[in-house]
């Protein structure tokens, strides 16, 4: 309990730094944001008007605190492009991104866990170095290029998967899944290698532990020892990887959503960058960082539950 409270308090400085960074990113922009938004032909008057609307005429520190105050009350400002509130725009784009990430995360775990167990089971064969090479290859392939190749294979040469678009879950679960499977697989590809490698390393470490030897000495079958004693002990440190996996997936969605025209947070970010819609850019990045921080918090708390030795210090 004490751990939970202290861990919660540690969020405050992190989120403060996060908000400062998000705020400064937009104010780093060389030149006047109002000028950039309105374009070169705009009149001096309309620029000044927009500056007042955006609060750009006040000192930076004041701007920051008034912005932070708004953010804390859930007001992320208004889109310069569509005049809608930014928080509403983000909520509207959440569904596709959430669907994509859930499928990708499930795919990652479904493929990575059995692979790691199998590799450790056959650890003295050529399978192990082969596995390491493949997982290295996995992190070396650019996601968007892999997506292009898959689209070429399964969208053009053998057209069995749709290569663009998104069907909401409410309009049919099967169709929803069918449209997301290819992008989710591309998104998961990198993470599968990372998670499987991490699990393998963890399992190989517990293979040499005393409890494993005892279990073997009891006469348990290799398979049972691997799953009951080795795998579950390796699973605990691997939960931390889920945090980084989510970060990887969040970064990846930007590329994958743009390529497969899925109207999620990632595509919203890219579109807003093209439109120079700074309030939306700011809102999306802050939102993603907050989600990532929260996921890491949950992972840490879960870790403490799974492994009672973990204490805050």
């Amino acid at each position, binding site marked *: 309990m004490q751990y939970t409270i202290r861990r919660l308090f540690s969020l405050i400085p992190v989120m403060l730094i996060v908000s400062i960074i998000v705020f400064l990113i937009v104010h780093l922009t060389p030149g006047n944001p109002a000028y950039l938004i309105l374009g070169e032909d705009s009149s001096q008057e309309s620029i000044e008007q927009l500056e007042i609307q955006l609060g750009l005429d006040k000192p930076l520190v004041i701007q920051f605190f008034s912005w932070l105050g708004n953010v804390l009350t859930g007001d992320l400002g208004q889109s310069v492009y569509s005049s809608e509130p930014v928080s509403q725009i983000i909520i509207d784009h959440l569904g596709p991104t959430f669907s994509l990430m859930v499928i990708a995360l499930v795919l990652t775990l479904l493929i990575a866990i059995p692979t790691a167990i199998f590799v450790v089971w056959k650890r003295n064969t050529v399978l192990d170095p082969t596995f390491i090479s493949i997982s290295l290859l996995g992190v070396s392939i*650019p996601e968007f290029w892999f997506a292009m190749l898959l689209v070429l294979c399964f969208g053009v040469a053998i057209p069995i998967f749709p290569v663009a678009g998104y069907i909401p879950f409410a309009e049919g679960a099967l169709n929803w899944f069918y449209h997301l499977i290819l992008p989710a697989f591309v998104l998961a590809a990198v993470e599968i290698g990372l998670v499987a490698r991490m699990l393998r390393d963890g399992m190989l470490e517990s293979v040499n532990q005393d409890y494993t030897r005892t279990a073997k000495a009891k006469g348990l079958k290799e398979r049972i020892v691997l799953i009951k004693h080795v795998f579950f002990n390796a699973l605990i440190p691997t939960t931390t990887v889920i945090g980084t996996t989510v970060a990887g997936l969040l970064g990846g969605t930007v590329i994958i959503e743009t390529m497969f025209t899925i109207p999620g947070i990632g595509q919203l970010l890219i579109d807003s960058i093209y439109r120079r819609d700074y309030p939306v850019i700011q809102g999306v990045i802050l939102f993603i960082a907050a989600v990532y921080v929260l996921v890491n918090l949950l992972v840490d708390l879960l870790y403490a539950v799974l492994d009672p030795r973990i204490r805050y210090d």
Partner: protein
Amino acid sequence: MFKSKRNLLAAGVLILLIIATATVSLWLTFPPSHIDPNERLLSPSGKHWFGTDHFGRDVFGLTIVAARVTLFVGGVVAFLSTALGTITGLIAGYYKKAEFIIMRIIDGMLAFPALLLALALVAALGGSVTNIIIALTFAFWPVMTRIVRSAVLQVNNIQYIEAAKTTGTGDVVILFRYILPNVLSPIIVQGTFIFAKAILAEAALSFLGVGVDPSTPTWGTMLQESQVYITIAPWFSVFPGLAIVITVLSLNMLGDGLRDAFDPHKKNQKKKIKTPFKNKKQKYA
């Protein structure tokens, strides 16, 4: 043996690539400036090894020339992130007071997925080679700081460093002459990985159209241009992508190999894995 051969291969590929890009003007038959409207989107042949693009340019030549910018960006980002991360990491690990402030800032920066942080920065600064380098350095150095700091904390209490402190050796000397050499191996390994990640990130940013100016050939901008022609001229997409994969894979292999080579603990572990019960048998034998 297998491991070291693989490292040799990875290093060889990288050296070959660097030599090829450095001497490109001496031997390239079809420089990227060579535009031939009659030879648009030709498939690979003896004349054009990798085929031609939509302007009739030789894709092989383009790929080699693009390597120059890509490797430059990756290399500079790796160097700058390593330098910044090492200095901040040394300070954070050595001075207790500075540690709190530095690590809070680093925690905050690590709360962003690296690619997104870079994307937001490039969006704010505008796309150019310099801005890409700034954005990627900013995105990648926090990880280095964290790694260097924890390495410093491990050697901080070793006796000879205590001894140096008591004899009144200056902090700068202790940091750079006694501590730095002891934490060098994780720095080199991580630097290699940052090089690899920076190449991937630059390609992704350029592909999304927010990175390097499209007229500058990099592997990312080539892939972006090729996307439209993927069904009629797949070679235009396949070869620059393969170039990225081979380069990044070589860097990752090298980093992986260096990590094992530097880590004596890992070496012992490897032996144990192969024969888990060897010690026991020896005891009774």
